[in-house]
């Protein structure tokens, strides 16, 4: 699966990290996404257009599994009309327990209990321009879509990548089979030696048997 990420922005990072890892250990890399990752968007497109039409999420998965969405911390009731703006933060979660969890469900019976913070349906005047969005995946959605996004390619802050490999170098063992940094192959241990630039890094991880 490939995420259709246009490189039409001059701000896009020229730095890229590509990893091939063992299939059995692929899930260990999902932790890279714990604090969120970045994608290109077309400003003004709806959450649903972004995730289903451009990124290619299955519509029934989107409708049924992703029950809780936040755009800039505001619960979204209608993803087909909630428009994404440049530098927005989009968080995706499965249905949540508890009364308060239930209030955040899109269009749920209890949505009125948090009415004062709901995301307004809107459109954006800068529609059409390319921009950035930060995506956070939580709980079952992280587990299920994390691999999809890692394989498709995403942008991460360099500190996030650096901290992940520093903290987990011991537990990743022989999971990493191949690494390329900025187009050139390096040894797996070389990731810890990279001098990370202070800008988002394009990262893509595939698994192989």
């Amino acid at each position, binding site marked *: 699966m490939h995420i259709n990420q246009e490189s039409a922005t001059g701000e896009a990072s020229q730095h890229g990290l590509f990893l091939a890892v063992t299939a059995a250990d692929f899930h260990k890399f999902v932790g890279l996404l714990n604090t969120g990752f970045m994608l290109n968007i077309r400003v003004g497109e709806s959450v649903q257009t972004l995730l289903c039409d451009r990124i290619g999420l299955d519509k029934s998965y989107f409708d049924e*599994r992703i029950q809780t969405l936040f755009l800039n911390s505001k619960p979204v009731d209608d993803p087909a009309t909630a428009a994404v703006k440049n530098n927005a933060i989009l968080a995706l979660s499965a249905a949540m*327990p508890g009364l308060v969890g239930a209030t955040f469900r899109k269009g749920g*019976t209890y949505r009125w209990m948090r009415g004062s913070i709901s995301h307004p349906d809107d459109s954006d005047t800068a529609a059409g321009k390319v921009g950035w969005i930060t995506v956070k995946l939580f709980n079952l959605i992280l587990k299920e879509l994390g691999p999809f996004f890692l394989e498709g390619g995403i942008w991460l802050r360099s500190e996030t990548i650096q901290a992940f490999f520093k903290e987990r170098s011991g537990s990743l063992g022989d999971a990493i089979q191949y690494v390329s940094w900025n187009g050139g192959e390096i040894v797996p241990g070389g990731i810890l030696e990279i001098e990370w630039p202070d800008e988002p890094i394009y990262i893509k991880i595939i698994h192989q048997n």
Partner: protein
Amino acid sequence: MDKILRVKMGADGGPQIVVEPLGDYAGMGGRAMTSAVVAKEVPPLCHPLGADNKLVIAPGMLSGSAAAMSGRISVGCKSPLTGGIKEANSGGQPSQMLARLGCAAIVIEGRPADDTLYKMVVNKDGAKIEADNSLKMLGNYDLVEKMKAAYGDKVACISIGPAGEMKMSAASIAFTDMEQRPTRHAGRGGVGAVMGSKGLKVIVVDDEGTARREPADPDKFKAANKAFVAGLKKHPVTGEGLPAYGTNVLTNVINEAGGYPTNNFSTGQFAGASKISGEAQAELENTRGGEGSATHGCHRGCVIRCSGTFYGKNGNFLTKQPEYETVWAHGGNCGIDDLDAIAELDRMDDDFGLDTIEMGATIGVAMEGGVAKFGDAEAAINLLKEVGQGTPLGRILGNGASVTGQVFGVERVPVVKRQAMPAYDPRSVQGIGVTYATTTMGADHTAGYSVTANVLGVGGNVDGTKPEGQVELSRNLQIATAAIDATGMCLFIAFAILDQAETFQALLDVLSGFTGQPCTADDVTDLGKSILKQEREFNAAAGFTSKDDRLPAFFKTEPIAPHDVTFGVSDEELDSVFNF
């Protein structure tokens, strides 16, 4: 369940146990039983720690049967924390075991003549009580080890730690889990202090030689129970989310929503939330304890299994998986983002016998009062040690957020009816604020936890767009919750019965199959309403007025980031919650 054990602590010649038939309390269980006994037998103006208060421990109506999820137990009394009626609910093994022993309630009343400490044993041959001062000031863990050595590894314990003996208003009552550890607690409202005031340290429950409670209509019951379990398993919350991550799955989501009270309710988002999230916690537990460590039941018969096991850095058992409210209270609310420190605090709470929500909220208030710095985990651990040791500072903290706020001159004290507010900011989620303000229990997130009005058919379809809609939702939720608390069912079944009409019907059929009586949604509603009415009447007689059904003023005057909202439900709207 055909009897009540009445423990008369002040009887001439020492405590006596009298076995009584159910009488007026026939057919009741859980919160229906505890609130009925307290409302009928406890003088509302009595001192909560005096001889006139009674402590009632009651298994749910379905406990001891094969009904899934039915092992919850209720503890009731006049609360030393709120001064009103209290029902605190717990998991653990004792509910099923007491029910199989035929015991619908243990009512502990009176007060012993001196400070002798007692232990009680209930088994198939009856119940007995004896003095045992060797148990004084033991932590719950050491106490249970001692009971295991004396009574074997099959018994369950209901006990208090040093906090209960010191009659602290944050003291809990511990119930042992499937591994005979004192990890499940009736936490809220200082019920442990009432047990301490009665001089009762522990009740040992031994159900050897008893059988499961059988339903009146076995075929109907069995088929309904099967459908009920299938409904729980197929729902994404009860079948997947809760088993995988526990209730702490809420941390990331509530934080993202800006409703995560941080640094004593001063802001709505915590920078360290992802480090203490359910996702991070489950990964840590499964890494340290092996795959599956993050999924465990708090009692036999639970099919959701929202709990888990937390292993320390050394790989040894430290505590059960801390719940969302605990992780919030000791974590984000105190600016602490270290799961190991939070687990350590949870273990200490369980050992001293303290409510984790009250203690986390109290330490947050103390931090605001300058006693320690937000984010200082070591200081939080030291403060909790002081509570366990009963130092002067510890005694202040052990009496909760309200007392602590007063002592340290803190204005932002997040309590209603003197009970600390749990992990959801009522400015971001105004509907929960209505429940916090108006519940009979003091700020309590579980009071309005369950089932939609539209499923139960209470008062027709709610229109939440109108201001009164929030009030109506809260009212209906409180009614349904009170009813579920009476069955012995875990409230977490709510998510499946909320979304799946057939699972709600299966629950009604389980009840009807067990009792042999018809059971409709209206019956459940009537049960909930009658419990709430009794509780409201008790509180009114104890001196509560509508002025007590309010949130602290700062929620109306201090906007919370990131949404910059204040609590906007009017007093008139709050006063209409109990118009039924």
